[in-house]
């Protein structure tokens, strides 16, 4: 069982090595990427089966400081996160093959290489057995994604990279690390324990300070005012934005907040001390402000980024509610938002590759040429807003009920208002696509045009050494990419019908 945990880390790293070795042969390289992603998902699935059966496998890798271990442990919350990240990695890899070739990106080997490293660190975050391990992989994740954010190598990318690393590092080093060492100083341990480790070790006055150190110190959760790195990261290629900056990296942030609340503080302890009262409102403010800023953005990816900022704070809010329903809603929202937002980003990328459009105002009428893409966008929108028949409805429901139980009627209003706002700023895109008037005679892009796919491993000979060789006479959205979009959009709907696995995992976390 413990070997599976080790494999969850080792497989993506091994994949990275293969990717580097196969750099001369793009098709073999991409095949290696896909195989690695598939193997990883299979491993996480096995871990899921064991954990839902009640097992809690753990393994210690090293002991850097006396009493401070680098340890992996599978528990329900981590498994939930790992499941989502590893599954979406497969989909994203497929999508990237189409996108990177269709977009003629340079340095594709470096791209796949660091992508695999990033996923390895995400697995480390998901299965971290204590705060120190979590922090270590959190920082490795920041570093591994830096080359992806600055992939373009332009002056703009460099500046974005500075903001990205600057904010993520500053918050984690100044607040989070201080919080971790403080926890260690008072509790004598940093291990995750059900029910938390702080009860009886800390005066009630210190709890709000410590909690704030984590909520703001985990910069990847993008609680305002430490959210600027996320829009900056949008300079990266779209697959990076899709998987890392809608799922893996940002979810690593909110996941860490949730995990710390549940396993270090213990949500009952947080509720008793009232430590999270003002932090709830910090999250609520981020939810509203993020939505409002999203309105003002014409750039599609920027709009989605601010939408993510807003949605991430739902998860933080759920954790800060500090009751079982809130925590369940919080964990469910990690899953639901992941599928919804990745769909939206995939669509944005497909539009960029096929029609070279990046601004919302340019999308008029495009939906008629790319119906699959825009339909998927609509489904994603519904899921983000939280409307049936999509999975997003469930997480919103639990968050709302959790707010009521916490006696925060004001927060229910915030949730409803922000749902309306997100409906407004996201729905504009499919509406323009399907009903908007075209500005002029553009060439006709089409969904799933055969030409741009670049071929599978089968015709490796034809394309060896020439990634993205295909010419773009027909401007189709790459077939690989459309397939990926279809998968995630269907998943949004499937999760409405069958949210059971995620719900069960979260009830295991809350112990009810």
């Amino acid at each position, binding site marked *: 069982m413990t070997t599976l945990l080790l494999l969850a880390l080792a497989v993506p790293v091994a994949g990275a090595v293969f990717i580097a070795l196969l750099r001369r042969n793009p098709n073999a390289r991409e095949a290696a990427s896909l195989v690695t992603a598939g193997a990883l998902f299979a491993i996480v699935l096995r871990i899921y089966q064991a954990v839902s059966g009640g097992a809690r496998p753990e393994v210690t890798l090293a002991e850097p*400081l006396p009493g401070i271990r*680098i340890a992996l442990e599978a528990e329900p919350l981590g498994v939930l996160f790992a499941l989502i990240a590893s599954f979406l990695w497969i989909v994203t890899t497929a999508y990237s093959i189409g996108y990177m070739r269709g977009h003629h990106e340079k340095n594709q080997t470096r791209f796949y290489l660091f992508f695999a490293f990033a996923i390895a660190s995400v697995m480390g975050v998901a299965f971290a057995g204590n705060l120190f391990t979590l922090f*270590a992989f959190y920082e490795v994740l920041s570093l591994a994604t830096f080359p992806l954010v600055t992939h373009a190598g332009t002056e703009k990318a460099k500046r974005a990279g*500075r903001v990205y*690393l600057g904010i993520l590092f*500053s918050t984690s*080093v*100044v607040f989070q690390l*201080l919080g971790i060492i*403080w926890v260690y100083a008072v509790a004598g341990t940093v291990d995750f324990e059900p029910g938390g480790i702080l009860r009886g070790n800390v005066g009630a006055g210190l709890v709000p300070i410590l909690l704030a150190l984590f909520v703001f110190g985990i910069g990847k959760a993008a609680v305002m005012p430490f959210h600027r790195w996320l829009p900056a990261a949008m300079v990266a290629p779209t697959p990076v934005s899709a998987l890392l900056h809608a799922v893996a990296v940002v979810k690593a942030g909110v996941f860490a907040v949730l995990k710390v609340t549940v396993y270090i503080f213990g949500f009952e302890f947080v509720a008793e001390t009232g430590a999270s009262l003002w932090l709830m409102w910090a999250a609520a403010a981020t939810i509203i402000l993020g939505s409002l800023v999203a309105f003002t953005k014409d750039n599609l990816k920027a709009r989605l980024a601010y939408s993510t900022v807003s949605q991430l704070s739902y998860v933080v809010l759920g954790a800060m509610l500090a009751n079982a329903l809130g925590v369940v809603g919080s964990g469910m929202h990690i899953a639901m938002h992941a599928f919804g937002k990745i769909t939206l980003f995939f669509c944005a990328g497909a539009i960029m590759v096929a029609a070279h459009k990046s601004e919302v105002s340019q999308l008029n009428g495009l939906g008629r040429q790319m119906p699959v893409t825009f339909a998927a966008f609509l489904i994603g929108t519904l899921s983000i807003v939280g409307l049936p028949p999509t999975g997003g409805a469930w997480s919103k429901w639990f968050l709302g009920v959790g707010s009521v139980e916490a006696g925060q009627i004001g927060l229910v209003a915030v949730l409803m208002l922000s749902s309306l706002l997100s409906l407004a700023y996201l729905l504009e895109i499919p509406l323009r696509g399907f009903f908007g008037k075209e500005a002029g005679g553009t060439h006709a892009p089409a969904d799933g045009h055969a030409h741009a796919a670049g071929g599978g491993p089968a015709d490796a000979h034809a394309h060896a050494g020439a990634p993205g060789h295909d010419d773009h006479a027909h401007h189709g959205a790459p077939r690989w990419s459309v397939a990926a979009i279809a998968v995630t959009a269907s998943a949004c709907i499937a999760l409405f019908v069958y949210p059971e696995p995620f719900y069960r995992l979260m009830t295991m976390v809350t112990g009810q």
Partner: protein
Amino acid sequence: MSAHLPILQVVVPLLAAPFCLFLKRGRMAWGLAVFASWAALAIALALLGQVTQEGVLSYAIGDWVPPIGIEYRVDIVNAWVLVIVSGIGAVVAPYSMASIEREVEAGRIPLFYAAYLLCLSGLLGITITGDMFNVFVFLEISSLSAYALIALGQARRALTSAFRYLIMGSVGATFIVIGIGLLYVMTGSLNMADLAQLLPEVWDSRTVKVAYGFLAVGFCLKLALFPLHLWLPNAYTYAPSAVTAFMASTATKVAVYMLLRFFLTVFGAPFSFDVMALDRVLLPLALVAIASMSLVAIFQVNVKRLLAYSSVAQIGYMILGLSFATVTGLTATLLHLFNHALMKGALFMAMGCVMYRIGSVHINAVAGLGRRMPWTMAAFVAGGLSLVGVPLTVGFVSKWYLILGALERGWWWAAILVLLTSLLALVYIWRVVEVAYFRDFPGDEATREAPWTLLGPTWALVALNLYFGIDAGRTVGIARQAAEVLMAGIGP
């Protein structure tokens, strides 16, 4: 044989030094220097092993019984420092072959190795001896050879830097002799262990306090504590690369050791903290050193000078740990002695590789090297991250204990300052990284990666940076034990 290890520790490199002069060929002198450095490391490791098993070792030179005769006294504290110094020596010696052949005229190379070995034996001597006057003698052996080593730098500013260092270093050494003399007047003894017994009787005397003051200034000059650091940046900038790597990792560390040894063992921790308020004197200096020198480092355009200012800031961290006046704080100091040696050594050696291929260490010289010299720049990035204190590197271990020490004292503002300044470290390291990876290489197409004779030792240090960051149990154990020895007489 093993009974004579303490004296061999110093004598092996000391005797090897004049032999270098007789060897006409630079390569042969190099071979001798490598052999002597490795022997020194082997002896230091053996001593550390003996000390951890058997406790304090005392060696009477020429069988003259201490306290009259000179005693070499090895306990866990100086065994630790011996390993640091000889370990860095053992890495820099092989590295210096290619680097020195590029940066020093062929005729002077045997002289270089003679001076290098003298410097090494001087530093080892300071560390191992239990006799105060012997400390002064070895201090001057190491300093004089250091002046010569720095003056071997290519730029003519190496000469003026060495001269300035000579003036300030000699003044510092003379202050130390004055302090030693005054202590001798009061007690009639030069043996440290003996003095530790005799001094408490004369704590109240003004002479002892004056001696303390002279010693404090002398040590702070030698260890380059702000504002007595002025000699350091230029000396490190213009010395040959191998010399900078060696000096930055050892010389100031040994000076810190001298300070700890004199003030905590000879005078005793209770005298230093309760009577002389050493902690309250050092704390503001350390804080100012950390903050101001990190800021100054950000604005440097010469990467070696940038790293030199960073060194002054890092010395501030060591002194900060001491000024907590707790075992945890001192553990952080002793850990950082070792850890900083590893990371600064790696960083300066990476810059030595750049110097070897590009011939300059100006920040523009590293442009595009991320692709052109990937291993060199990867070593720089790894060392830099360690300096910033990223987890799984040694820098993180130091930082952890430093912050733990601050929180133990309830000084959360000191903890925040340490964390904020590590961000400044990120800024100045990242400036170099951005130039290396985001700019195009302007130079000759034929420029290749540095030879493995340079990369090997550099990466050896990088590997140690990572290894002791992932498995710091042993280093932390030794440092804590040493801190407990030094803090004897004061609560936990």
